[in-house]
């Protein structure tokens, strides 16, 4: 299956190179807004509980997600957590891309992304600097270095704080690394991300996300997400309590399958559920019966 992922990625990259006209503008600077033609339910309202479909989680990732209780988000330390770089581009987002120029040489030493969601600032260093040592702090955006491959920007990111691959409890570990390719077709910017998580994924998670150039952006469109302040959302709760489900006691894990008349097995995720050929296997599986109304 890893080979299959490789082939898919290679095809997308090849397509990008072939369809980019010679001499086309490769600068990425500008204001970009998210397009939502892919996976809209997940990106807007949010994923449903127990929906692990298409995410190549391993057994550890599955157990973590099964244990996760959405009430965890009410803890003060969790309320204002930002999305991590492998996830944030799929949110409701505006991205302002600028370049940092070395004043002495006038070369571009970094590309900066200002991401409206949680007002995140990301720097992609192009000056060949090494990644920090393992003991350096992690951040939501991580530490990124990049290089131009023709008119495609390749970016490699490490040192990302623990976050999620999907915001219904599927965890992303702090050992995750991400390789991205940014390529532009006129007014459309495509980000191809390959996320590798040795702790919670059994294969790389490959996604493409499209952004549209916006020439009419005003500064106030970037200001809505700047501030977040945690409040006491559950008065009286012991601050040492951590909401979670004990193993085997999460009542919501089959809800998604029942609601959409799906078999349960594919909703449990795993690398196999990413591939088109899995559709045939699903057809032979029993469908989850809806839960009886109380």
């Amino acid at each position: 299956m890893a080979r299959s992922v490789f082939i898919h990625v290679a095809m997308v990259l090849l397509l990008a190179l072939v369809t980019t006209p010679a001499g086309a503008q490769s600068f990425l600077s500008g204001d970009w807004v998210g397009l939502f033609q892919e996976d809209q339910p997940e990106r807007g309202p949010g994923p449903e509980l127990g929906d692990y479909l298409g995410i190549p989680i391993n057994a550890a990732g599955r157990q973590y997600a099964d244990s996760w209780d959405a009430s965890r988000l009410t803890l003060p330390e969790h309320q204002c957590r930002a999305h991590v770089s492998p996830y944030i581009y799929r949110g409701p987002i505006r991205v302002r891309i600028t370049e940092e120029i070395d004043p002495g040489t006038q070369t571009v030493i970094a590309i900066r992304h200002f991401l409206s969601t949680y007002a995140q600032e990301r720097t992609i260093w192009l000056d060949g600097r090494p990644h920090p040592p393992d003991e350096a702090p992690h951040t939501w955006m991580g530490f990124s270095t990049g290089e131009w491959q023709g008119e495609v920007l390749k970016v490699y990111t490490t040192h990302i704080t623990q976050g999620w691959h999907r915001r219904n409890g599927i965890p992303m570990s702090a050992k995750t690394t991400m390789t991205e390719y940014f390529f532009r077709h006129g007014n459309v910017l495509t980000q191809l991300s390959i996320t590798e998580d040795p702790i919670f994924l059994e294969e790389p998670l490959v996604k493409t996300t499209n952004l549209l150039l916006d020439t009419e952006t005003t500064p106030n469109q970037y200001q809505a997400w700047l501030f977040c302040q945690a409040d006491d959302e559950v008065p009286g709760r012991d601050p040492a309590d951590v909401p979670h489900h004990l193993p085997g006691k999460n009542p919501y894990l089959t809800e998604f399958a029942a609601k959409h008349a799906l078999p349960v097995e594919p909703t449990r995720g795993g690398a196999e559920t990413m591939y088109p050929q899995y559709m045939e296997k699903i057809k032979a599986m029993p469908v989850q019966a809806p839960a009886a109304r109380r």
Partner: protein
Amino acid sequence: MFKGLALVAAAVMLSVLSAHVDGSAQGTSAPPRREGGLYTMPVQGNVHVIVGAGANVTVQVGNLGAILVDTGTAQSAGAVLDSLHQLTTRPVRHIINTHSHADHVGGNEQIGASGAPISGRGVAVVGAGTSPRAEIIAHEETLNRMSAPAGSQAPTPVAAWPTSTFSGKHKEFFYNGEGIQIVHVPSAHTDGDSIVFFRRSDVIAAGDVYSTVSYPVIDAQRGGSITGILDGLNQLLDLAIAGEKTEGGTMIVPGHGRISDEADLVEYRDMVTIIRDRVQDMLNRGMTLAQVQAARPTMEYDGLYGAAPGWSASQFVEAVYRGLKPERSSQ
């Protein structure tokens, strides 16, 4: 001509400012310095960390001299001093021990001897003569673990023992322009744990109450407990304040592993709490230790924390199990 000079000066200033902004450990543009396999990294403010000495060694530097939180192993002491000399030419004035384990106090003797106290403090070390040495501060239980009654063989040399102890909840003093709080965490990793808060730099040295590379090591023979570990982690969370956009702010140097912020710490606290709750539930259901270990209540976290030398997931589960009692009211 002047305009040209002004532009050059502005460029230089921009370059300096840029280097300053990126002077944090993650933004460092140069490879980390290495002395005997050790790394030295800035944390923030006056505080740095020396990594690779067996345990993290936190260093506060300033005009008055250096303070070290822990000293690493005895074998690393020379390399720690070499690394320290890259940070400051001033002497070590104080050593603060977070607990008594050899990977944290092993360098006390050599590094202490290289230092000098201010105004005579630290001279009266039993058996160490009158030569000036850095003062060694720790909780009283740490001294008890490192020393022995007269006539008995102590586990550590006399010159490595703390020379200034406290027995209450905390000790505090002002040094190098900032307040320093040493807070005792009872019965956590051991019975003598302390965390050290550099208030102006906004950095906490957490000792082995917190690690990013292993489950919490609970040294039950020396008074450690799962309850104390969780109390300590929650105490750290109370002290830490996340920075803008919920990252950075108070930085935490764990006993082992990477420099952290509140976002890292809360994940670790959550993990320990969840495992404690699972083991408690199994205990309440009458499961034996072997059954609990076989059920793998740590499973999803083992890839992150289960491969530490000398402290397996199974050992951690056993320590948690033995530190809890069945609760009648639980389901």
